[in-house]
């Protein structure tokens, strides 16, 4: 019975948010509520018949202005497992070749009366802007370097399942913090759950004011990884960064790529995470990425559970 819940939302109080735009909008109890809901969704995806009827008759549009295979399919599977009608729209635009504005697109889609829009956009704030112009729930699937709230939730769920707790842990986020929405959402979420957060990166990949967002700031991996329970590696956009933000991939890997030696500086039971897609040999040694300490594929699995929970929470809150 515990493994085959017919519905999950009925067991939780109504979720008070209409949209999920930013972790900054969530109170601590709402974060924990979403994690608890997601925990209940994990077994659903492990059943033979992986479905719940909770979103039957609802329409979910995945609107991706930036290409993303994994996040889009994760949201698609989450919606479908809850019985929603899921439509994928990939909109190829750039700020220079825009015809229709974002607000126009929002109005057009809104007229089709979806129940939820899952939106990814290359510009910070774009998802929030869109949410102001539609009558349905909006989930931010990543907006520029601003936030990626479901990634932070799935990371937290993964940590909780491996460590049995979140509060009191020390988590290091390593790499291109300046350009990372994953880092921002994680710092906000982990901070709200009383985690000791560290960022580790070369100075030029640390954004101004980062000392106010993380508990500690390091530029040296050896110092930064001491006593760490969780290591989150970030993707380096090396095609763009090489020669501009960093001199070369090999120098970056030498000082900031996670290999066995550097992993040895962390706690012996520290887990290794990565939001994907990984650059093996750039920010992480393939042996570590695929090794025993890596929980990277668990993150992908938890991604579906978290997205099911978020969809369920936002849309069942509607009815309450």
């Amino acid at each position: 019975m515990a493994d085959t819940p017919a519905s999950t939302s009925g067991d939780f109080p109504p979720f008070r948010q209409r949209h999920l735009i930013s972790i900054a909008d969530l109170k601590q109890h709402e974060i924990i509520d979403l994690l608890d809901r997601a925990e209940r969704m994990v077994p659903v995806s492990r059943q033979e018949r992986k479905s719940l009827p909770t979103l039957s008759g609802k329409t979910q549009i995945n609107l991706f202005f930036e290409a993303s295979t994994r996040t889009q399919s994760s949201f698609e599977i989450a919606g479908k497992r809850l019985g929603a009608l899921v439509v994928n729209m990939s909109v190829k635009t750039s700020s220079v070749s825009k015809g229709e504005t974002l607000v126009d697109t929002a109005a057009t889609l809104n007229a089709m009366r979806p129940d939820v829009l899952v939106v990814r956009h290359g510009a910070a704030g774009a998802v929030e802007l869109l949410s102001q112009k539609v009558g349905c729930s909006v989930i931010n699937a990543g907006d520029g370097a601003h936030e990626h709230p479901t990634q932070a939730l799935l990371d937290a769920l993964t940590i909780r399942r491996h460590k049995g707790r979140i509060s009191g842990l020390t988590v290091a986020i390593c790499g291109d913090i300046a350009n990372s929405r994953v880092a921002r959402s994680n710092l906000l979420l982990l901070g709200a759950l009383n985690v000791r957060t560290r960022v580790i990166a070369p100075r030029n990949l640390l954004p101004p004011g980062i000392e106010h967002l993380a508990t500690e700031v390091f530029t040296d991996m050896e110092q930064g990884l001491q006593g760490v329970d969780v290591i989150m590696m970030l993707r380096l956009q090396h095609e763009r960064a090489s020669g501009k933000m960093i001199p070369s991939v090999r120098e970056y890997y030498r000082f900031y790529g996670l290999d066995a030696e550097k992993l040895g500086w962390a706690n012996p039971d520290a887990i290794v995470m990565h939001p994907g897609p990984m650059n093996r040999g750039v920010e992480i040694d393939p042996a570590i990425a695929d090794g025993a300490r890596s929980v990277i594929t668990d993150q992908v699995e938890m991604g579906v559970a978290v997205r099911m929970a978020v969809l369920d929470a936002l849309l069942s809150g509607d009815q309450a």
Partner: protein
Amino acid sequence: MTKPVLIENARIVDPASGTDQRGAVLIEDGRITDLALDGPVGVPDGAEVINANGLVLAPGLIDMRVFTGEPGWEYRETLASAGEAAAAGGVTSFVMMPDTMPAVDDGAVVDFLVRRAKATSKVNILPAAGITKGLAGKDLTEFGLMREAGAVCLTDGRNSIQSTALLRTAMSYAANFDMTIVHHTVDLSLAGEGVMNDGLFATVLGLKGLPREAETIPLSRDLQLAALTGVRYHAAQISTEGSVEIVKAAKSRNARITAGVSINNLCLNENDIGRYRTYFKLGTPLRSEDDRRAVIEGLRSGVIDTIHSDHDPQDSEVKRQPFAEASNGAIGLETLLAAALRLVHSDEVPLLTVLKAMTSRPAEILGLEAGRIAKGAPADLILVDLDYPWQVNENELHSRSRNTSFENARLAGKVMRTLVGGETVFLHQD
């Protein structure tokens, strides 16, 4: 010949002479012909008498940085609609930036603007001429021919000239014609893809920052070149504590340097952006509160000479965009005075200093007769209720565009009547 006008029972505030006392002003043929402070004034037969009822009578404001949409973007603003907004805001003259389509980079365009403004605008529009063709920062324009056509100064408007060598040549040539170079300083490579002030707040929003040094480094360069060439140089709009220090040091050595500040940088800071409010996305970004306090002190101490509106009409098509993709700019002609009076009401800057920065100082920099209340000066005047409370409603503004950075702001102080050349061009209706 128009009827003489007598404005009596006014509190005459004239920054040029330091006057702040009761009196009356007589206007004949568009000029101030008599000025009576605490005494009688001869009233010609048939004169129209305006009782100011103790309101402040000040010179009409001269706004050194206004963008319109004519020619090229008339749906954003025409000379006529900018004139309406200006009149309602007490701005009797404004310098029009050359960022039009086509750009003001040729004597014929200057000539068109002068004629068109006379025919359609309620206030005086003073064209600024581009320093480079198409404002592209490559080839010099014909400074002398544009001055003959009526250009009051040289500027590339929103654009900042990157080539130090070109700027040196432009300054030397401008000095030759005794024209003022007005330059908005941005180091484009350092500014990069920045869209707001660099710092924690930009980091939280996930937006790329504009470091203060992108303003101060080219400003230092400009001030050195100004000393080298002897040109009259006006730093178009400074926004940082560092810029105030740099200008202060340069002014102590070179009397031909002046500096301006946008009303936005005096009254607002980066926190006003809130959650991606694009009306607060400006060409000179809103800075930190420390910077705002520094530019206020710069104004109070005289390092900063002028306050302007940076009026920049943009339509919703380009404003209702994700922050990084939205156009810069906010309208401000109509809120300039009331917003500036905030500094007076908060006792940060004296009334005479604030008004001087919008009247006699810009007049001196541009070589205009206006901007003062004196016998013989043009009768460009405003009657102001310094305490009149009002709330900005974007739909009641006269501009064709709605992008005000003072949306819903509660302000104290309003223009009750605006006269240009002795003619009433705006009368407040309750």
